[in-house]
């Protein structure tokens, strides 16, 4: 009942958004702004001739590798930073700087060191995704309710059990919100890398179709990446519910 209702709400908000887009295309807001239907037909055309999938095969490589690295290493470092003041002192500044660094300025440096291949692009994704994952995880770990840790200790949990059965599950809502932000940032990073390093994949579609004024294709590519990001974030939410059901249902308020 509630599921179908939230589904309906989502559908309505999508319809409103697409309707507004369509109308803005008719007005037109700018001669470079296609209508929603034009963009969708360009999307279908690219899907049918396969160029969209070829592009995604290219774009997903640095994206997936980068997000996997940022997720695993980021959470591990974050837990470590949250547990140890010493690590906090050593590593936190790096990620704080990384988070606020102007990425565009770093790209030429990366290219100089790692070339224009996959490595540089993975780096860009990581630089975008990792800091928020690390910092969120560390903060959540540090804020584990002390009464739960005390309870674990009283019932004879080892330090390792305290970490795996109390600290990590208790931090998981914030870790997951860091992951969501990190994944979104990673998507931005992947496209940015393709726009700024070498035009490949979806970045290539965007650059190329803009250069030939095929704005419908350009918006179709942008639209598709947003849809993909939303799907990915939804999958992440499913994973979180699967892993920590009680947490997602809400915290006890006492």
């Amino acid at each position, binding site marked *: 009942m509630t599921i179908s209702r939230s589904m309906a709400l989502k559908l309505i908000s999508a319809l409103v958004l697409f309707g507004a887009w369509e109308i803005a295309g008719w007005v037109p807001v700018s001669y470079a702004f296609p209508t929603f239907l034009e963009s969708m037909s360009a999307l279908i055309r690219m899907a049918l001739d396969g160029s969209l999938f070829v592009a995604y095969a290219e774009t997903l490589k640095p994206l997936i590798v980068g997000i996997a690295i940022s997720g695993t290493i980021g959470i591990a470092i974050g837990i470590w930073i949250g547990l140890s003041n010493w690590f906090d002192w050593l590593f936190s500044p790096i990620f704080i700087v990384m988070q606020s660094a102007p990425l565009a300025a770093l790209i030429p440096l990366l290219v100089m060191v790692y070339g224009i291949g996959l490595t540089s692009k993975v780096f860009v994704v990581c630089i975008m995704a990792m800091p928020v994952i690390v910092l969120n995880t560390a903060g959540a770990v540090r804020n584990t309710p002390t*009464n*739960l840790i*005390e*309870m*674990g*200790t*009283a*019932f*004879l*949990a080892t330090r390792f*059990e305290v970490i795996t*059965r*109390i600290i990590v*599950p*208790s931090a*998981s809502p914030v870790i997951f919100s860091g992951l969501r932000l990190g994944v979104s940032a990673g998507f931005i990073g992947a496209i940015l890398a393709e726009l700024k390093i070498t035009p490949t994949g979806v970045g290539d579609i965007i650059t190329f179709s803009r250069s030939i004024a095929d704005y419908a294709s350009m918006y179709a590519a942008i639209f598709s990446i947003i849809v993909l990001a939303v799907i990915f974030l939804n999958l992440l939410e499913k994973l979180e519910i699967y892993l*920590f*059901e*009680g*947490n997602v*249902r*809400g*915290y*006890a*308020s*006492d």
Partner: protein
Amino acid sequence: MAMPQIKEAVAPAEPDIAVSTRNISKNYGDVEALKDLSLEFPRGQLTSLLGPSGCGKTTLLKIIAGLLEPTSGEVEVDGKAVTGPGEDRAFVFQDFALLPWASVLRNVAFGLELRGVAKSEREARAAKYINDVGLGGFENAFPHELSGGMRQRVGLARALSVDSQVLLMDEPFSAVDEQTRRKFQEDLLELVAVENKTFIFVTHSIEEAVYVSDQIAILLPRPSRVSEIIRPAGLRDKDVDNIRRDSEYLDIVDRIWASLRNYVE
């Protein structure tokens, strides 16, 4: 018409001491919570710690549990010095300390889980204690779906399920309603009677302390010492249902109130 409580008439000259605290002091920075507190807890009996809020009852209980280091002094359980938490002690927390992401069943079984008891066995044992505290049917509920009193019972069941010799209970009935509270007090008396466990019980309620205790230690406000030990010995042999009408019961309640009222503004 209730059955009289049967209790063996043992009056050993030297009571068997399960837990003893010697010259415990505890400072939190500049705050002196406990000062030179010594107290002995006879085996198989229930000792209440009674005192005004903030006088250090939780602190003392956590020191006995091995969760806090005393600034000075020592705790012995069965003659062995306490250096940390142990299998011989289980704790009921004042703030429940339940895992919000775990079901009632997993919360109750958590102590057993940490002791490496196999899943099917620990869940069977947990289910038994869930029933005992009156939460049957709520095994799969999550803590946020329970009332305060129900959460407290989950914490109680968790402590009972590990079957420790010493039960440290920090205001275990504070969040339950008056009817349930009375029921629990009776259950507790029965538990003390049938199990040879040592109960250390923190409470704010003078009536509750007198009703359930073999021994009541009255603590004075910070820095806390034991000001008086009262043993309502005569009450323990009486019929549970009549205790509250007993003149000895009323006398002791009055006496404790007389010595505590000086500390209430």
